């Protein structure tokens, strides 16, 4: 099968290394701020969807509250810098630790919840964090948002140009994909798959349910917070509507689903499809109709292709393979005749 972890590692090395080299070279060829900016946005959403996939896909808990972790990452890095002058490189780590702890707590308390109950609990958690971000004005300045000073320097992760953020984004995506690959090859990865397929059977076989679910939730949350800190330093302005809002949670999950949840590269592929498509639709049709199509796309994808783009590609590949095999056998049988 195409999604065997060992096989995946081979494929990722074969395809990944030349691809990575090409990606690193992009800013030397693309200097247009619009296109490079679009690329950075794709990288960020790819990282977010990949991070979501660790709890949403590998562990099977469909979270609709990941904007909370994104917000925690963005606000922690920003506030540490604004209040104490701590460089966002460290702020990013602090945000990841904080979000990881939150993720572990949420993982622990939603442990027994299945199906829609889990979804609703994560949704409520996300909304609690959003309400806090809007109303805790002493800390977050509420809807007015927080502005990071322009030109804070490379030391503070605040670059004047766009290109450095391309590399940071690339590093972020590499980190999330690396962690995903590592998990899938580790015992944790196998335990998570077992839990997702049949929790009771896995428990009976001695899988440490609590530890696995909490770990997946914490790792996913910490990586999501890293993307939040990245977003804050890239845009250099954050407010609740761009970080903790419910729509952000939906978008993260949507991208992962369009790409193919539970696979390693699907969610990143989803960002490559959804983000530019969203930009094109918005530019040509305007916000309302673009989002109408968005909703329609979500319905069609989950009804017709619940395994996402990756699933479609795999089906296409196996069709081509079986087609080739059939051609080969007919040729051989003709030869015998």
């Amino acid at each position, binding site marked *: 099968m195409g999604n065997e972890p060992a096989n995946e590692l081979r494929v990722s090395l074969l395809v990944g290394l030349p691809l990575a080299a090409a990606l690193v070279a992009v800013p030397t060829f693309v200097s247009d701020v619009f296109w490079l900016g679009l690329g950075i946005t794709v990288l960020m959403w790819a990282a977010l969807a990949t991070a979501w996939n660790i709890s949403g896909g590998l562990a099977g808990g*469909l979270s609709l509250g990941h904007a909370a972790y994104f917000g925690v990452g963005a606000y922690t890095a920003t506030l540490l810098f604004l209040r104490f002058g701590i460089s966002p490189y460290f702020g990013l780590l602090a945000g990841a630790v904080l979000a990881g702890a939150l993720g572990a707590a949420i993982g622990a*308390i*939603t442990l*027994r*919840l*299945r*199906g*829609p*109950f*889990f*979804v*609703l*609990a994560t*949704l*409520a*958690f996300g*909304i*609690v964090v959003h*309400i*806090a971000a*809007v*109303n805790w004005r002493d800390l977050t300045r509420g809807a007015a948002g927080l502005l990071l000073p322009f030109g804070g320097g490379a030391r503070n992760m605040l670059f004047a140009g766009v290109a450095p953020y391309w590399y940071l984004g690339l590093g972020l995506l590499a980190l999330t994909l690396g962690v995903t690959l590592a998990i899938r090859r580790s015992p944790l990865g196998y335990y998570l798959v077992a839990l997702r397929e049949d929790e009771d059977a896995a428990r009976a076989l001695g899988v440490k349910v609590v530890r696995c679910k909490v770990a997946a939730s914490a790792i996913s949350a910490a990586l999501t917070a890293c993307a939040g800190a990245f977003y804050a330093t890239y845009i250099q302005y954050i407010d609740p509507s761009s970080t903790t809002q*419910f729509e952000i949670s*939906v978008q993260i*999950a*949507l991208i992962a*689903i369009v790409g193919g*949840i539970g696979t390693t590269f699907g969610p990143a592929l989803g960002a490559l499809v959804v983000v530019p498509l969203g930009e094109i639709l918005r530019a040509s049709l*305007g*916000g*309302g*109709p*673009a*989002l*109408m199509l*968005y*909703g*329609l*796309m*979500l*319905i069609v994808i*989950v*009804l017709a292709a*619940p395994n996402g783009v990756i699933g479609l590609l795999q089906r296409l590949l196996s069709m081509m393979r079986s087609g080739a095999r059939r051609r080969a056998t007919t040729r051989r049988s003709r030869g015998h005749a």
Partner: protein
Amino acid sequence: MQLALQILVNGLLLGGLYALLAVGLTLIFGVLRVVNFAHAEFMMLGMFGVYWVWHLTGLDPYLAVLVVTPLVLLFGIVCDRLIIQRTIGAPEVTVVFATLGLSIFLQNAALTLWTADIRSVTTAYSGMVLTPFGLRVSVPMLISFTVAMLAAAGLWLVLTRTLYGKAIQAVAQNREAAALMGIDVRRIYLWTFSVAVAAAGAMGGLIAPLFTVYPRVGISYIVTVFVIVVLGGLGSVPGAVLAALLIGLIEAAAGFLFGAAWAELSYFLIFLAVLIARPQGFFGRRGAEVFAGR
């Protein structure tokens, strides 16, 4: 004392309105095992429907509700045929995100058709207030509350007293056994879904004279209603009504004591606490939270 009574009245009136929305959502979950994220969008359609009928013909909004509700019912049938029926038995991700997609679609269809303008329905009795025992009770609020409660009670009677309602309950309890007893499960799904979203549309029509109408109005209701149906026990109609009144009270009391933000925060915290400590809610069947995903 007077103040406490006033808060009690305000809370109950608000909760009664939530109830009609919550009853439909909990029915859809109990019978179809679908969490309908688009539920409040049907309410939004009801609000816009009444707004346009009133705006274009000058018909009284409460009479307009009678015109709009059957239209929402028809639209519910279309949605059930095109989307909901296809999610039955599908993987969980399909069930959750198909209705979420429908919600995004409907919100932005309204935005595209009718712009983001905030509209309101005004009548001769809009500002009218009754003052029994020194309490202030808004007349349109009282009318809407009464009609909503009657509608919820009517649904409950149909569910418990008619053969059709008993068939619905049978499907909710065990869909395979119900099918073996000769119940057409797909038909039950169709009618449960359409009647439930029609109730949401009716609720929207009823609150059109009270609150402003705009495409994203559903967002502020849907999460509250989720809190209500989980609190009452997903699938339980009386539970939903009681929890709706309770949430209305909490919102009014906490809103008065601590401000609107704290009111919202307080019931989400209650929601999380209930999910963690008693996920089947106060009236739900035990174990529902474990088997619901299956």
